[in-house]
């Protein structure tokens, strides 16, 4: 069952240091496929750290692995991920006459991805 | 020429060129549009004493007004260009602006002169007024306690005709009045014409100037007063004991002529002896309405 949440894209220092080395390496791929999520939301959706979730917007979809954050750090309903190839998949190309695509605070459908073997 | 036994005298009504504006006043209900129209056109019978002449042209249905509400159409006339806006500003300001639910629109969009009436009235808003341009016309929105008063920024002015008339010469006062009422009813709602006097009828026809009082611009038309038959050079035929006059103002001469035809025809009824008209020898007013020609006959009158 999908829920609508707000996805914030951003930068992290770990991403910054990693991209200096290579954007094609495994470290960068891992960082840019990690989704920070409120722990209560995760519990409700039956997710635990490293569970796969599918994010979907009208532009596209991406599958990430989630990582829990306490409510004081990340309020319920808010998601965070670093910019990268996966966040690109979710962004619409319309810039509304500004040149800037919306890349923060996207409404995304969040859906746990069940492994074939079941949870 | 006789119409149903009533003599149509071979004379003409002499009318003047005036300036005319047409206002469309709408209201939340026909009642309030009418109330505003009545107050606006009250005390506007003759330029002699009222500085302007006005009357309700006709009532308008929802489909005929700019805002889709019931309304009345009003014609407003003055002798010169300058006094028309002055009269409109003071009269609309006192009678339409004040009247619940109403709005005031220009009814002569093609009028070659534009009178800045709404533009002057807007200042009642004390700076809180605002304007809107809709379909190329500018309107002012003046805040009032009820809500908002809407008035068009400018009103068209064109040349009109004032002083079309005919006189009903009757056997007695009852017959004269009945004929006058019938005439007024027949002319009601005629496009381009208003009857500025009370109920459309005037009993006190006047002549220019005074025989006795220097300052009087107009005094009673003694030649048509039955009580003065023995004292003055009366023009009343024998048997006529009461005369009533109908005065017509309008946007143009053909409209007045057409209305006169309907009015005279309706006035030709039992008890009426003759229909005549007032003129000044044809030298003062450019518009001459020959009664017999109007009624479809021949006229020899100058």
């Amino acid at each position, binding site marked *: 069952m999908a829920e609508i949440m707000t996805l914030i894209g951003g930068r992290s220092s770990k991403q910054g240091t990693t991209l200096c080395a290579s954007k094609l390496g495994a470290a960068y791929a891992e960082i840019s496929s990690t989704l920070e999520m409120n722990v209560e939301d995760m519990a409700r959706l039956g997710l635990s750290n490293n569970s796969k979730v599918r994010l979907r917007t009208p532009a596209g979809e991406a599958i990430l692995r989630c990582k829990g954050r306490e409510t004081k750090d990340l309020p319920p309903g808010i998601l965070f991920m670093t910019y990268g190839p996966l966040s690109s998949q979710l962004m619409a190309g319309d810039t509304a*006459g500004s040149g800037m695509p919306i890349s923060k605070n996207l409404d995304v459908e969040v859906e746990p991805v069940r492994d074939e073997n079941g949870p | 020429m006789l119409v149903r036994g009533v003599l149509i005298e071979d004379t003409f009504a002499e009318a003047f060129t005036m300036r005319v504006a047409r206002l469309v006043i709408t209201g939340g209900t026909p009642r309030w549009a009418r109330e505003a129209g009545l107050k606006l056109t009250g005390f506007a019978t003759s330029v002699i004493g009222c500085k302007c002449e006005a009357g309700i042209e006709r009532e308008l249905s929802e489909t005929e007004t*700019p805002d889709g*509400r019931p309304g009345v159409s009003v014609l407003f006339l003055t002798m010169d260009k300058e006094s028309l806006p002055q009269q409109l500003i003071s009269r609309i300001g006192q009678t339409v602006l004040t009247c619940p639910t109403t709005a005031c629109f220009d009814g002569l969009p093609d009028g070659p002169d534009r009178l800045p009436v709404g533009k002057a009235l807007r200042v009642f808003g004390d700076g809180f007024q*605002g304007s*809107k341009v809709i*379909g190329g016309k500018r309107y002012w929105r003046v805040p009032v306690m009820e*809500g*908002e008063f809407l008035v068009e920024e400018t009103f068209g002015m064109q040349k009109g005709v004032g002083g079309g008339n005919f006189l009903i010469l009757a056997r007695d006062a009852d017959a004269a009045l009945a004929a006058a009422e019938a005439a007024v009813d027949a002319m009601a709602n005629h496009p381009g014409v208003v009857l500025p006097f009370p109920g459309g009828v005037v009993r006190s026809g006047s002549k220019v100037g005074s025989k006795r009082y220097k300052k009087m611009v107009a005094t009673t038309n003694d030649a048509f007063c039955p009580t003065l038959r023995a004292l003055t050079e009366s023009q009343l035929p024998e048997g006529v004991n009461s005369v009533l006059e109908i005065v017509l103002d309008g946007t143009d001469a053909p409209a007045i002529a057409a209305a006169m035809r309907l009015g005279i025809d309706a006035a030709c009824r039992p008890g009426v002896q003759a229909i005549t008209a007032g003129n000044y020898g044809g030298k003062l007013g450019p518009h001459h309405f020959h009664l017999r020609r109007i009624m479809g006959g021949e006229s020899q009158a100058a």
Partner: protein
Amino acid sequence: MTLTLTLRTAPTVPLEADVLSPDRLSGVSALEAAKLTVVHGNQRADLGEFFQVGGAADGELHLTGDLAQVKQIGTGMARGRIVVHGSVGMHLGAGMTGGEIVVEGDAGDWVGPEMSGGRIVVKGNAGHMLGSARRGSQIGVRGGEIVVFGNAGNEVGNGMRRGLIAIGGDAGDFAGVNMLAGTIVVLGRLAWRAGAGMRRGSIISMHPAELLPTFSYACDYAPEFLRVCLRHVRGLGLTIADSHVNGRYQRWCGDGIELNRGEVLILDSAGTASRS
């Protein structure tokens, strides 16, 4: 006879065809028109490379085809009429002072920039910046009318100083932003932050809208001018219900940061306006 242009070769990159204006084509034969210059990307080309031209110019121009890549149609137009059987690209009717453009399909961004007169009717959807000020400029539409039957994007009427914009569908964010005067009617939904920074002017919404905290509620009433305005809009082809004409509206004044002389009018039956 009108001049008819039918797209036969789609441009591979944007085509700037500011020459497609009745004023510029006045008295021009089909043969002459085909030789007029358009700008295809960074190179000049003949109009005839892209369009089959027929008829002769008599003040009316009929364009047919998907012209979504064709920009600047009707630039500087002062009179006459353009009918587009299809969609058009950006900058439709730029600097237009008179005449009429009717687009049967959609229009791109920047419909009617710096327009001061005339009328543009878009029967489909329009892009962003409809009737909006150019970047850096404080003044958008200076007069005239823009009617969109479908939806419009962000910044409808940015900096608008006079005129009417009527939208049959929804309007995007910041409709009427920095408006100086004029009227924007939105029959569909008004998105966020309508009227931000407006000094004067009216934004009319037939649906509940979230307003900025700097807008103040004034009253519920039936604005008389709106009856006139909506009937006029009805005459332009949009579907206006009697309940819109006769309705009561909430009047919200704003933007409090600026003059506070603008207003957002929200149809009452639409429910209560809320603050954003």
